[in-house]
Structure formats: structure tokens, C-alpha cells
């Protein structure tokens, strides 16, 4: 696996710019993440959250700027991706493969690394292992997506709406797992529309608007700044403040 040592920042983004045609989605984002810290990226729709995440994963190529994973600049070498677990916003898989086959596929691609499938049991995915993906509900696909993101115990986790569509049992199991991985030292990037989830899981909030970071601080900071105790209200107030 790609090594992310304790001595360097797991993720560093420096001066990240990205435009789609006339639309400047990221306007110079600087962000350094720490080990064992969960950062929530919040902002209105179209603020650039997903583009930021996709740049980090190499799905989108930034126009300008540097991305360092574990202190090494990301280039054509794709090995850094073995350090990142990713839950996409809309997980979908080849229709005819079964849950088990998809897990096997990733395991084979990683050279049969040791895998942790505890999440699979906790989220009660065991019964669905031999069903083809097309027979799975949206929530079950989300469970599979969670298992895939966590199974290699990566040092960095990118979770785009991780609890969307999950039943309460699976959602709690996943959140417990996220907390445990964080304790182990994993670095997390989270987005969610469920503010209580962000409140529960994250240590730091990055507020993104029009592709620029407008606020970067702890949950405590954001509450103090806005005078609101609930994150949802605090963010809503920041949005109104920025709009005014």
C-alpha cells in the first residue's frame, strides 16, 4: 500500500483551480488535512464540494495547483489511490455482478491485500452477498459502497453523503465505524446534507462558496462566530451572511 507517514500531512491542496468552460468552480483552494481529523466540507449546491473531492481522487484534472497525498505530489503514478477509500454520492455497480464478486474484484486489483469486512456484518450485508447488483435496493448499494471504501483500512477516507439512504441500523453501524477509524488515525473528508451527522462525526468545518474557502475552523469556532448552537442554523446564517 501507498505509505502515508505520520510525519507529513496526509492531504495537501495548494492553489487548486478548476473551470468548466466559463464556469469557475474552484478559485484557488488551499487546504491541509491532519491525521485523525474529520473535515466536513459544507456549502450550497454548486459551491464546488464535489469538484474538490473529484480533484483529490484524480477523477477530475485541476487546471492549476498542487495535490499532495502523504507528502508526494500526485502525478501520473496512480498508486496513491490505494491510500484513499471513497464513498461516492451515487454508488452504482455493474448490474450483473454480485456483491461478493465486486468485493472480490477490488481485492484482486489490490493484489489480495488483507481486507476488513467487519462492516459487512455490522450492516447486515451478509444476506445480500450472492444477489446481482440489479436486485439490490438503493440502501443496500450504499452499504456495499461503504464496505468497499473501508475494507482496505485506508489512511484517507473521502465520504460523499455516506449515510444517504441507509436504514438506522446500518447508519449507526457506519457512523460507529467512521469514529473507530478516526481514532485509529484515519483522515476523513465528509460531505452531507444531514447536519446532525456532520455534527456527530466531524472535528472541523470548511465552508466553501463559489469555489473559495470562506470559513475554516472547528465546530466550536463556527458556533461562536454565528452565535448558533446548531450546525444547521450556523451554516444557514453563514450562507445568508455571505449572500448579503
Amino acid at each position, binding site marked *: 500500500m501507498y505509505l502515508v507517514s505520520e510525519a507529513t500531512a496526509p492531504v495537501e491542496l495548494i492553489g487548486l483551480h478548476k473551470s468548466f468552460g466559463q464556469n469557475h468552480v474552484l478559485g484557488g483552494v488551499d487546504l491541509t488535512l491532519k491525521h485523525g481529523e474529520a473535515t466536513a466540507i459544507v456549502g450550497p449546491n454548486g459551491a464546488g464540494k464535489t469538484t474538490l473531492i473529484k480533484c483529490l481522487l484524480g477523477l477530475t484534472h485541476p487546471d492549476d495547483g498542487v495535490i499532495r497525498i502523504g507528502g508526494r505530489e500526485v502525478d*501520473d503514478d496512480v498508486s496513491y489511490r490505494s491510500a484513499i477509500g471513497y464513498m461516492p454520492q451515487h454508488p452504482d455497480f455493474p*448490474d450483473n455482478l454480485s456483491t461478493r464478486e465486486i468485493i472480490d474484484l477490488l481485492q484482486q486489483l489490490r493484489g489480495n491485500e488483507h481486507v476488513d469486512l467487519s462492516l459487512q456484518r455490522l450492516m447486515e450485508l451478509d444476506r445480500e452477498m450472492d444477489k446481482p447488483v440489479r436486485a439490490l435496493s438503493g440502501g443496500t448499494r450504499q452499504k456495499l459502497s461503504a464496505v468497499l471504501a473501508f475494507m482496505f483500512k485506508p489512511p484517507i477516507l473521502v465520504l460523499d453523503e455516506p449515510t444517504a439512504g441507509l436504514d438506522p441500523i446500518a447508519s449507526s453501524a457506519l457512523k460507529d465505524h467512521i469514529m473507530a477509524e478516526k481514532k485509529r488515525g484515519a483522515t476523513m473528508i465528509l460531505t452531507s446534507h444531514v447536519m446532525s451527522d456532520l455534527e456527530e462525526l466531524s472535528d472541523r468545518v470548511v465552508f466553501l462558496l463559489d469555489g473559495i474557502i470562506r470559513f475554516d475552523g472547528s465546530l466550536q469556532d463556527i458556533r461562536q462566530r454565528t452565535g448558533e448552537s446548531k450546525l444547521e442554523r450556523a451554516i444557514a446564517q453563514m450562507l445568508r451572511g455571505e449572500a448579503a
Partner: protein
Amino acid sequence: MKVTQSNNLWTIVRYQLNNALRSRWVLFHGLLYFVLAEGLLVLTGSSDKSLLSMVNVVLLLTPLISLMFGTIHLYNERSFILLMLTQPIKRRLLFTALFVGLAAPLAGTFALGMAVPFAIHVKITGATLERLLLLIGSGALLTLIFTALAFLIAVRQTDRIRGVGVALIVWLAFAVVYDGLILVVVSTFAAYPVEKPLLALMMGNPIDLARIIIMMSFDAGALMGYTGAVFTRFFGSIVGTGIAFTAMAIWTIVPYRFAGRAFRKQDF
């Protein structure tokens, strides 16, 4: 590292093949050619007549099916592509695997669907075998070429409906419009020696190239039409076949390379 990457290529291709074989379309694709060839053999009772009729079917159908399946497949596999791209897998390798994972079952089921009825009904000997193999070979090459073109369309045009529309237009252009244009050129410049420019024009259409390859094996001058006759006169049968096959190989590689490059630069 190199070993791991090629292992990964094989792993992804195998999963794609499993996926393709389990979905019904691969079976239907093979069955389509089986039914057509079987029907013609039963109706005509002659292997050469059936082969000649199959030529037109193959020249029209393999490009159409490859273009449609190729574009739709790439759109459908978007989520699989996203999953793979978040793994430590090079885009170049993923692109190759996607191409092989579609083109191989398409070409394979086409070849099987064509070959089985002939194997059942006819005692295949020298000339018939050669013609059958040339037909299957050029049909398979057309499948590769138009799958590559389909990938190029799907990578450049991320809107699914537009992509399929462009694929249909490309098919019409190569299968119908192009020959019409050649006819216009020939009749307009009837008073001039147009053989050489015509040869160049024929290189521009893989369907024409496939037609030439097959028709030359039938020794059917009248059926080859003007362009085919010109081609044989210039190159002779064997050299002509070699040149046509080479041109088809180039027709596979060039769109494939362009599509691969666009895929590597694509934002998902």
C-alpha cells in the same frame, strides 16, 4: 509493477466478460447471426448464395451494432468506470480493458453465430472455407473499428442521447452516404481518369474495404462494382486483400488511440 498492471488488465477484462456473458445481449447477438445464416442456408440450399447474402447483412449490421452497443455500453459502465478510477489503476489500462471487454464478446458471438450454421449444413471445403473465414474476419474487424469509433463518440460526447444520435449519423455516413458520394464523384468526373483518387476515397471507408476483401474472394467482377474492379486491377487479388486489411487495421488503431487519449484527459 508492470506485472501487477497486466494482471489488473486481465482481472478487469475477465469481470467485464463475465458481466457480458451473463447479460442477455451477448446471447441475442450471437443468435441473431445464427438465425440469419441458418435461415439463408435453409432457404437457398447453397453455401455460396447464402454467403453472398450474408455479406450485405454483415456489412450493414456489424457497424450498426458495434456503434450502438459501444456508445451505450460506455454510458452504462460509467459507474463501473468511476469505481475503477478510484482504485490504483491507470486510465490507459482501464480503457484497454473496457474495449476488449466489449469488442471481444461482440466479435466472438458474431463469429460463432456465423460459423455454426455453415459447419452444420455444409461440408466446408477450400474456397468456401476461405470465403467464410474472410467474411468472419472482416466482420470481426468491422466490429473492432466501429467499437473504437463508438468509444471515441461516447468519450467526446458525454450526453447519452446526443452520443447515440452521433453514432447513428456516423453509421449512416459510412454505410449509405459515402457510397452515394463516390457515385456522384464518378459520374461528375466521368471524362477524367478518376481511378487513383477513387482508391484513396475507398481507403476512407472501412465498410468499403471489407466489401472489397470479401468480393475479391468471390471472383465476382460484376458484383464488385466499379470501385472493386479498379481495386483488383491495381493491386491484384492477394496484394489488394493485404492492402485492404492493413487499411482496416489502421482504421482500428487511429480511432482507438484518439478515444484513449480523450479518455485519459476526461473529467468525471
